[in-house]
């Protein structure tokens, strides 16, 4: 299976076309094809995971970069005995020659399989699959969540106008993520990445008849696209820095062994990270994710839990050699990845407090948790980050589907107006939602506890004390906002209309499965057992010398205490109603803070109002002013205009300085508009005359002066 891992994305891709063409004629309108395909891929992923687990550890890599390499086994498992013998020999050598003195454990070597995609002159571009621990774990998670989302959707989306297309898009979406996960080359990964971008657009705007929904889809598409420009630039830089190859393993190796130029590495890593910021909704491009709640709830679950947003995290984990070397993560202190992650944790967690829409609470919580993963990667806690990605997928999927179940009952997402007291009406949803919440909050012994704890420990041990503190504060806030969310939804008095009822088995079934994983997934990395860490161990980590820190009791107690404090704080606030209410009404500072949060730090205003508005508005106004005054005729207008522009700019600079204008962006646009105004006649041919004339003058000056 590991050599033929390409089958997995292919199955869902075929399913996409089948649903598209045959879906409408099927008795269940295509849902059965999607579920069957996902079930098949899930089984195949399980097989791949088991095969990976059974694969002999035959590769020895020493941190210094001088590796002792077991002979490559091109035919995979066919010559197991021989490879085994070789490996043990090499391993003995490795132990003997290990300068550091400590024993180097052999690891499982990744299975890479490439075929020539196309060749251009001397450059051959390969496509293929790369199966290693990270990939199989991701495959398992993605296919499981996607399968459950499919099952959930059969009931949730029942009777929808575009039911069939919804399932087709889900299949394609899953294909995108699976393709990204198994890609061995960056170019191929980009295909999966963009496929997801396209599908998220289609799915978020599934109910496009309503303007806000199609706006949200557009926003998600364009915001992630902003980041994707960085990704594209980064991939091109990596291509040339690594000697014209897109191969991920080669790029990682070269980055770690000093085979790349320093500048190219840093610039490339920054550009790639921009793509990650966009896709994984990190500050300051996180604004699209809460809006993406406009899509159907199962889509939100899929986007937030297993695909799309974790693609960015996955990319950093996959290209960890590049980021490790470029940002010098091993050195401690501070670096861009950890900083962005840390900022995101705090601002998103704060935003989650003021939301009244249950899905938006969860959306900001996702942003915050993604911040944890990115921060973990930034502080060198690779295993912890991937582990958190793994556990988070289960409890966040659970919470979203739970929110979907609730909204199915009360036909709304507004916690304050339409929910409350639902624990009596929906016992299964309530129980599973509670499990998801405490897992998210990180309470012992649920999944979130183990992964969050590993992140905090990793930050502390690698010399990132500041980020450990941020993580602890984040844990406190997480516990508190989830308490608020649970209280508003399930406790108190029912504030909605009608009679809510428990959802049917197609909805509660996935909830129960996910709840089981939310309880149990954390145990995979149980102290002393650590199956997860061992599974995902790879060459890059050893080459870079990334240390994995196992569980320690004291920090765990501290973080648990903080989580409990958060629960207690919010509990007092909401359940016991002990703290003063209406603080925002009386206290000016609190009100200002509340306003800031409700307006999402004014980031959307900054993007649309200030940046776009000022450029558009000012130029238009300047041009209008011009139009009133400028005499027609380009020739003398240029003369008069440049003098006028000088005077105008002078006057306005003066004005601006005197006023102490705050608006820098608008100011620049204003000056620019002033210069442009003389030629704003609207007649294209006058612009053309200026263009050609100016070109001729430039060419002449080029001839004369050079």
């Amino acid at each position: 299976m590991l050599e033929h891992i390409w089958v997995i994305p292919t199955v869902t891709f075929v399913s996409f076309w089948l649903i598209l063409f045959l879906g409408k004629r099927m008795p269940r309108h295509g849902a059965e094809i999607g579920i069957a395909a996902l079930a098949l891929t899930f089984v195949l992923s399980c097989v791949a995971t088991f095969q990976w687990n059974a694969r002999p550890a035959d590769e020895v890599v020493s941190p210094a970069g001088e590796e002792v390499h077991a002979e490559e086994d091109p035919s995979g498992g066919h010559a197991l005995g021989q490879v085994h013998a070789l490996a043990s020999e090499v391993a003995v050598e490795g132990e003997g020659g290990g300068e550091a003195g400590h024993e180097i454990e052999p690891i499982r070597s990744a299975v890479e399989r490439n075929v020539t995609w196309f060749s251009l002159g001397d450059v051959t571009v390969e496509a293929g699959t790369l199966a290693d621990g990270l990939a199989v774990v991701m495959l398992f998670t993605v296919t499981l969540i996607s399968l459950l989302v499919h099952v959930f959707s059969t009931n949730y989306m029942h009777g929808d106008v575009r039911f069939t297309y919804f399932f087709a898009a889900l299949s394609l979406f899953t294909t995108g993520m699976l393709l990204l996960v198994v890609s061995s080359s960056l170019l191929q990964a980009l295909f999966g990445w963009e496929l997801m971008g396209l599908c998220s657009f289609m799915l978020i705007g599934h109910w496009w008849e309503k303007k806000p929904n199609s706006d949200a889809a557009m926003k998600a598409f364009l915001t992630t696209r902003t980041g994707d420009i960085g990704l594209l630039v980064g991939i091109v830089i990596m291509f040339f820095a690594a000697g014209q190859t897109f191969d991920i393993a080669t790029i990682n190796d070269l980055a770690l062994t000093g085979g790349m130029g320093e500048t190219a590495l840093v610039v490339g890593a920054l550009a790639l990270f921009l793509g990650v910021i966009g896709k994984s909704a990190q500050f300051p491009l996180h604004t699209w994710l809460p809006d993406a709640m406009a899509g159907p709830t199962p889509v939100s679950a899929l986007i937030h839990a297993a695909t799309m947003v974790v693609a960015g995290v996955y990319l950093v984990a996959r290209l960890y050699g590049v980021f490790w070397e470029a940002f010098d993560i091993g050195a401690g202190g501070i670096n861009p990845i950890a900083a962005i992650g840390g900022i995101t944790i705090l601002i998103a967690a704060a935003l989650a407090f003021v939301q009244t829409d249950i899905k938006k609470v969860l959306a900001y919580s996702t942003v915050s948790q993604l911040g944890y993963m990115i921060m973990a990667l930034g502080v060198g806690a690779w295993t912890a980050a991937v582990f958190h990605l793994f556990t988070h997928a289960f409890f966040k999927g659970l919470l979203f589907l739970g929110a979907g179940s609730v909204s199915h009952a009360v036909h709304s997402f507004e916690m304050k107006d339409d929910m409350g007291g639902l624990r009596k009406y929906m016992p299964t949803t309530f129980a599973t939602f509670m499990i998801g919440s405490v897992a998210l909050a990180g309470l012992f012994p649920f999944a979130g506890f183990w992964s969050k704890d590993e992140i905090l420990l990793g930050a502390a041990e690698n010399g990132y004390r500041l980020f450990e503190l941020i993580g602890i504060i984040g844990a406190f806030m997480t516990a508190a906002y989830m308490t608020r969310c649970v209280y508003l939804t399930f406790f108190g008095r029912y504030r909605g209309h009608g009679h809510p009822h428990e959802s049917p088995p197609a909805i509660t079934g996935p909830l129960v499965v996910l709840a089981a994983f939310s309880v149990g997934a954390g145990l995979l990395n149980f102290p002393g057992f650590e199956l997860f860490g061992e599974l995902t161990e790879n060459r890059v980590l050893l080459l870079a010398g990334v240390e994995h820190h196992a569980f320690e009791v004291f920090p765990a107690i501290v973080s648990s205490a903080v989580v409990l404090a958060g629960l207690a704080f919010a509990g007092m606030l909401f359940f016991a109603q002990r703290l003063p209410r209406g603080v925002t009404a009386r206290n000016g500072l609190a009100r200002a803070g509340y306003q800031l949060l409700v307006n999402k730090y004014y980031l959307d205003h900054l993007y649309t109002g200030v940046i776009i508005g000022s450029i558009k508005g000012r130029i238009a106004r300047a041009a209008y002013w011009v139009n009133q005054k400028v005499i027609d005729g380009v020739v003398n207008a240029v003369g008069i205009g440049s003098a006028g522009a000088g005077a105008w700019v002078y006057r306005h600079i003066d004005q601006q300085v005197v006023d102490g204008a705050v608006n820098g962006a608008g100011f620049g646009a204003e000056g620019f508009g002033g210069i442009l105004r003389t030629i704003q006649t609207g007649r294209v041919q006058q612009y053309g005359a200026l263009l050609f004339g100016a070109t001729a003058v430039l060419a002449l000056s080029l001839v004369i002066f050079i």
Partner: protein
Amino acid sequence: MIAQNIAFAILALVATLAALRVVTTRNVVHAALYLVVVLASVGALYVLLAAEFVAAVQILIYIGAIVVLFLFGIMLTRATIGVESDLDNDQRWIAAITGLFLLGVLTFVLVESFGDDQLPGLAGVSREELTAQRGTGAVGDAIFSTYLVPFEVISVLLLAALVGAIVLARRD
């Protein structure tokens, strides 16, 4: 060699005069027909440069397709078929000055940099060799090997233009 130069002189003269008529004639349909003359003489120039395939494409696509498109454009926009007095706008002199200035700069640059450089003579090269080196086969090979990606990109561009043109022009 002399025969080539004479041919060039005739073709260049025809192309220049016809091009001048394209931009000065007062009849829109005549402009399109003069354009045919320009395009045909440029096509003949390609033959002088031993670029037979480009010459064929020039005739087929430009004259066969693009000029016909122009005639359709003229028809659909109901331009006056016949003499029209105001086909030029009021910045004709500015345009003429710009054009002449540009021509001056270009001529200066070209004379300065290429001077009396000769095109490598093809007289000694046999016909077979010429065909093998730069004939249609060689061009085809190059397009589908070295320039494959640009070729694909252009095909996508053409598709996009097709879709764009339909979207723009259809009535709804």
